C-alpha cells in the first residue's frame, strides 16, 4: 500500500539513487517543501534529470506496488505547466492518489 509517507520515502530513494549515479550533484533530504522542478529547485535537476527522476520513481512504484502508475505532470493537482514548480509534497500527494485509485 503506497500512502503519502511511502510516496515521500520513494521520492527520497529516487533522489538518493540519482545522487549516487551523479545525476544529482548534492545529496538532498526531502521534505514537503523541497522544490523538485522549477525556479530555485533544491533538487538540482535539469529537464532531462527530472525526466530520469520521474522514470526512476515510476519504476520504484511498479516494483513496490505491482501497479503501473504513470506520472503525468499535467495531471498533478497544484502543478501549472505555464509556471512549472513542483514540490515533493505535491508529488507525494499525487502519487498516493494514483495508488489509491489503481
Amino acid at each position, binding site marked *: 500500500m503506497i500512502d503519502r509517507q511511502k510516496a515521500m520515502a520513494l521520492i527520497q530513494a529516487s533522489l538518493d539513487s540519482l545522487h549516487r549515479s551523479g545525476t544529482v550533484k548534492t545529496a538532498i533530504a526531502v521534505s514537503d517543501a523541497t522544490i523538485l522542478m522549477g525556479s530555485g529547485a533544491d533538487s538540482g535537476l535539469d*529537464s*532531462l534529470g527530472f*525526466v*530520469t527522476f520521474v*522514470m526512476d520513481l515510476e519504476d520504484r512504484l*511498479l516494483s513496490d506496488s505491482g501497479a*503501473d502508475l504513470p506520472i503525468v505532470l499535467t495531471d498533478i493537482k497544484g502543478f501549472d505547466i505555464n509556471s512549472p514548480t513542483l514540490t515533493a509534497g505535491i508529488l507525494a500527494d499525487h502519487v498516493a492518489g494514483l495508488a489509491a485509485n489503481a
Partner: protein
Amino acid sequence: MADKDTSKPLTVITGASRGLGRALAEHFLSKGYLVAGCSRSNEGALTHSDYHHAAVDIRDEAAVTAWARALRRQFGGVDVVIANAGLARSALYLSVTPGNVFDDFLRVNFAGVFFTLREMSKLMLRRPNARIITISSTMVPLSQEGTSVYSATKAAVQQMTKVLAKELAPQGITCNVIAPAMMETDASQELAKEGDWKDRMLALQTIPRVIGLDEVCHAADYLVSPMAASVTGQVIYLGLAD
C-alpha cells in the same frame, strides 16, 4: 511481474510494415537486434521471433504514449529509434493544396515524429550509446514545386532533430537525420504515375539514380555504430550533394 527482455539491444521503428521501414526492420533483425515496429494496422507485419509489432497510429498522442509504456514494461528501455513513418502523397502546388491535406502532412510527418521522439527518448536516457535517427528527404534542399507542405514538414523534422541532438548530447545520445533522394517505395511509385515526375526528380539528383533501401540501412548502420559516437545533429543526404 514478468522479467524484462534485455537479451539484445532494442530498435524501435515506426512505419515498419512496408517500404523503408520494413527494410530497416529486416536489416536490424539480421544484425541481431530486437525490433519493435509499428504501423496503423497489424496487416503486413513481419513475422520473426525477435520482432514485436504494434498497431499504432503515430498521429495519436495517447496511442504513441501507450506503446512506449508497453515497450518500457516489456524491454526496460530502447537503444535505437528510427522515426520513419511518413506521408509522401500529393504533388499539388501550394495554391491548390486543401487544408485537410496540409493537416494530414503536419499530423503524420511532424506531430507523429514529435510524439515518437518525445516518448521514446525518455526510454533511452539510461541506455549507453543510444541513437536516434529521423528520416527526411532531399526534397528539403531541392525545394521542388508540388512539395511545399511535404518538404516543409521534413525540414521541421530536420530542425527538431538538430535541437534534440543538443538536448540529449549530455546523455551520450546522438540524433541524426538520413535524407534519401528517390527510393522505390509505394509513395514514389504513386507520385511517378504523374507524367515524367520520376525522370525530372532523378535529373535533379547529384547521383541520378534510385537510392536502394539497403543504402539507407547502411547509413543507419554507421550512425548507430560506436564509430559514430561524435556524429550528432547531422543530416546525411543520400544521392544529393547539398
